[in-house]
């Protein structure tokens, strides 16, 4: 069965080709259904392979791609427990989002184009997670970046959306350069880029090799770009310009977790590089907290979710940084469930609100959108870590792991956790409780979404409710299904044994989080529903701190003036001064001086024979004198 794994990415590729080449002949409805079916086929095949569950990794060779001297790069796929986990997430959640899009994109003139891009995305994402060497992974990596670019700028008439698309692609490319240099360094160091060769060679290496530190840091630069970590995170909030299913699939559930996946995949390299792990956890922690503070005051429902994604990705990097690789993947999984759920539910809200995304104009929607309300509530509880929803278990595990590593990490993550609950319940109450604050037209138009949208929502809501039981903490159960499943594919970090937190600590953590969450929910309900504290419409009414947060610490403006503008100034300087005046000026100067010399020498040729003879005689005398003197 595993040998058929090459078909998994082929299905959506066929979907992309059929839909994009046949869009003139095929009926419009066909593309949505066909696209969904291809992803379903991939999901079923992945599930079949998963159920057989090969104990060790198996490599499926497809064809030789690049061969140059000692460098050999086949297209081949590695099926082990890490890639299987990702396969199920990508195809499973991907399928649900495809189905959802059938309803969501119904009215759009680019319906078929949308599904062809979505299929292409799934293809590249599968390439990314299945590749058995770094270059195939990189191909998928850049490919998903392309699809992200195409889908952010899907409504390409809008200049702002196009700018957001460009920003996403370019920021990702900054990371990609790091990734590519890291891959080349891997090749130079190990003489191969295939996971098998590299990791088996790395197993024998001692800790703290400078070259391994360099490799892991370069790879991490790539992860920063793709997974939106400081300083390369600013593209992700802007990426919300794309249609909402895109935000759910690409910019929350799957693509942005590629950085996590890559580090998990390279866990052997990271484990022997404690310095890089420290960098990873510090960046992750900073990003988690930083993005959470911004999310506190945003009023665009998708922006809040976008910053929460950045923040949750930070969590995952902290997990990686403390060597808890399976925990990170566990959070990737639960996050995929509840964040896809939240985004799609938000999409359902936006759909009902005729495109309105500002929570200040919503309110009281629970009566008109009962299903959306219920699933959004589940999503909110899951991300806030309310037991027993999915986010509780994975977040709890990260907190516990962080505690064993460093109380400082734990403290900041706990603060972030509190902030997460606050901003999520803020959005939840503002949207679904209180009175409606939009226009009459919007109110008149309010409706629950069609089944093709609500069914995926319900499925995701169920997953967000029970998904956490895949990894119960040791106080509840001897078996950590998720951790055990991944164990065979992961290394045990040499320097940091995966120490378990004590049971007392676990119980305390659970108790404290329940009490804190109850307090937050009570406060938020009181503040936003009872007291009607709606965020101000005018920015001028904000307090200074809120204003700073609302403007996202002005990071975009800072980047603009420190990087973008200077780049263009330097380029203009190169062009107008260096190129046109100096370099070309020199060239023209040489030619002018030749002309000048020619004209000057021409004067000597007077045609007067007497002058010539005089000159000749003078020359001979000069030569003779020269010989005499020297």
């Amino acid at each position, binding site marked *: 069965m595993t040998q058929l794994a090459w078909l998994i990415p082929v299905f959506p590729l066929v979907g992309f080709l059929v839909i994009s080449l046949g869009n003139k002949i095929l009926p419009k409805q066909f593309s949505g259904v066909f696209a969904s079916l291809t992803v379903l086929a991939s999901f079923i095949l992945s599930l079949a392979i998963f159920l057989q569950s090969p104990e060790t990794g198996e490599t499926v060779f497809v064809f030789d*791609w*690049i061969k140059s001297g000692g460098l050999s790069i086949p297209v081949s796929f590695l099926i082990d427990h890490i890639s299987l986990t990702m396969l199920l997430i990508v195809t499973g959640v991907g399928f649900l989002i495809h189905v959802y899009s059938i309803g969501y994109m119904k009215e759009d003139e680019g319906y078929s184009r949308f599904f062809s891009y979505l299929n292409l995305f799934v293809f590249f994402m599968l390439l990314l997670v299945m590749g058995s060497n770094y270059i195939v992974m990189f191909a998928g990596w850049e490919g998903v970046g392309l699809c992200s670019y195409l889908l952010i700028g899907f409504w*390409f*008439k809008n200049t702002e959306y196009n*700018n957001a698309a*460009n920003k996403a*692609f*370019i920021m990702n490319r900054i990371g990609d350069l790091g990734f590519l240099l890291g891959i080349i360094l891997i090749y130079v160091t190990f*003489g191969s880029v295939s996971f098998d060769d590299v990791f088996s060679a790395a197993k024998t290496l001692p800790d703290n090799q400078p070259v391994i530190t360099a490799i892991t840091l370069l790879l991490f630069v790539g992860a920063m770009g793709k997974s939106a970590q400081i300083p390369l995170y600013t593209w992700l909030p802007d990426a919300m310009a794309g249609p909402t299913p895109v935000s759910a699939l690409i910019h929350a559930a799957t693509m942005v977790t590629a950085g996590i996946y890559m580090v998990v995949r390279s866990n052997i390299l990271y484990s022997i590089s404690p310095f890089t792990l420290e960098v990873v956890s510090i960046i992750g922690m900073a990003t988690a907290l930083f993005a959470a503070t911004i999310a506190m005051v945003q009023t665009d429902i998708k922006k809040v979710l976008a910053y929460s994604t950045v923040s949750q990705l930070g969590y995952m990097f902290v997990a990686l940084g403390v060597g808890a690789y399976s925990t990170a993947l566990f959070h990737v999984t639960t996050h995929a469930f509840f964040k896809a759920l939240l985004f799609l539910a938000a999409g359902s809200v936006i759909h009902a609100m005729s495109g309105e995304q500002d929570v200040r104009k919503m309110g009281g929607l629970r009566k008109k959108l009962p299903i959306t309300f219920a699933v959004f509530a589940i999503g909110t509880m899951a991300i806030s870590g309310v037991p027993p929803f999915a986010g509780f278990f994975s977040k709890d595990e990260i907190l516990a792991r962080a505690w064993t590593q460093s109380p400082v990490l734990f403290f900041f993550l706990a603060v972030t956790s509190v902030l997460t609950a606050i901003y999520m319940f803020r959005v939840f109450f503002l949207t679904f409780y209180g009175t409606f604050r939009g226009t009459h037209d919007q109110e008149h138009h309010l409706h629950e979404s069609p089944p093709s949208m609500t069914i995926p929502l319900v499925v995701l809501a169920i997953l967000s409710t029970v998904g956490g039981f895949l990894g119960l903490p040791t106080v509840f159960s001897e078996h950590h299904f998720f951790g055990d499943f991944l164990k065979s594919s992961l290394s045990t970090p040499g320097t940091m044994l995966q120490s378990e937190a004590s049971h007392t600590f676990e119980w305390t953590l659970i108790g404290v989080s329940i009490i804190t969450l109850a307090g937050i929910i009570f406060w938020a309900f009181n503040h936003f529903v009872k007291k009607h504290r709606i965020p101000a419409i005018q920015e001028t009414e904000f307090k200074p701190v809120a204003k700073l947060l609302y403007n996202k610490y002005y990071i975009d403006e800072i980047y603009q003036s420190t990087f973008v503008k200077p780049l263009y100034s330097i*380029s203009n300087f190169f062009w107008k001064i260096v190129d046109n005046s100096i370099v070309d000026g020199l060239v023209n100067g040489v030619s002018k001086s030749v002309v000048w010399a020619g004209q000057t020498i021409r004067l000597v040729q007077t045609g007067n024979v007497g002058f010539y003879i005089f000159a000749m005689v003078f020359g001979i005398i000069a030569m003779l004198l020269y010989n005499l003197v020297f």
Partner: protein
Amino acid sequence: MLTTLIFFPLLAAIAVLMSGENAKKIALIAAIIEFGLSVFMTLGFDPAAGTQYFQEFWWVPSLGIHYSVGLDGISLLLVLLTTFLVPIIVLSSFKHNNKNPGLFYALILSMQMALVGVFSAQDGFLFYIFWELALIPIYLICLMWGGNDRIRITLKFFIYTLFGSLLMLAALIWLWMKTPAPHSFDIQALYSLNLSATEQSWIFWAFFLAFAIKMPVFPFHTWQPDTYTDSPTPGTMLLSGIMLKMGVYGVLRWLLPIVPSGVHEWGNTAMILSVISVVYASGIALVQKDFKRLIAYSSIAHVGLISAGVFSLTMQGIQGGVIQMLSHGINVVGLFFIAEIILDRMKTRNLSELGGIRLVAPAFATYFIIILLASVALPLTNGFIGEFLLLNGVFQYSTWMAAVAGLTIILGAVYMLTAYQKISLGVTNHHTEKFVDLSQSEKWVLIPLVVMIFWIGLYPGYFMGLAEPSIKTLRDVIHSSHGISLLSH
């Protein structure tokens, strides 16, 4: 057979010259026959068997000049590139009713003769003759069918490149005098010369200047943007798609193996200039308003990377250089054709006057973005294979140079996507709303290019396999006869 391949275009050129109205059709048919012939020769080519289709006879015996031609893997790929691109270039100009079409197409075909000759010459003097012969048709094409400022610009181009060629001629004559009497220009004789380090340095610079001007590499590039922009687009395609490869090919065939100690001494300087080209030209491309000029600068950046890879002398660097020569030829011709379509319909290439074309011309926009993505080296396109191998090669030579040259990955995306946005995205203006989508013949220009983009991107093995043994031989020549140590891998 190779001689036929070289001179068939010349015969065709004469036919075209006399054919009057049917010039374009005859030229196209001739170019396609030529392509077929080269494909046939490729099928009979054995990569492992060294130089093939070898033909030699005395030309000027008293001076030791042979007419001697042959193909190894590297030559073959460049010949294929030439014969593949010329029909496309001819077809790309079908819409235009140039004045005096007979002469126009005859010049293109005679240029093809010279180009195939350059890539197959096995004798220094013959190489030089073909090299100069290639210059004349392109000079005339630019001069007679160019833009408003063509006289000044083509003169500069002509003198600049001629200056380089004369240096090369001087170097060749010097080498000839060094060969044992009776002297010879034969390439093998030149390979086995024993030159002092000083001589090697001098000859290195004479050759390097000639080739660096042709490519061009910073700071010898200032003729290029003007010439590319002002030439008629088929001329620009010939220059950028094929002719600049003469420079890189020259380095591979005539510079590295003949003066390896010179390369040892000065290769680092060449690398630095190449890497500067990459970043410098990318930066300038960023602020261009004329799309054609933007492509011209981006071409300097791409060629800079090729040159850096070749001078790294690593297997991956050279192989990447060879593959990237093909890819760059395909992509740059595609991009210039896109620019030509825009100019033809809109009478402007100014980016700020365009926009929204994707709305009215979806097919155009699709081909455009595929070629554009290939040019920014997206994996699974041809650009990635070359760029990855090149950066790999440069990295093995110097980490820092690779990091700096790697900036092209970022900057290339910036200027290309910005240009794409300004041309294709957004809403139409009163200009662009009348943009007509691709015609059938335009599609026939773009389809072969796109096929090659994916062929090389997905299965480069075929092309790399053709060249690999020749590159090994080349590295052996550099290595063995002069004891220059090469990086492993």
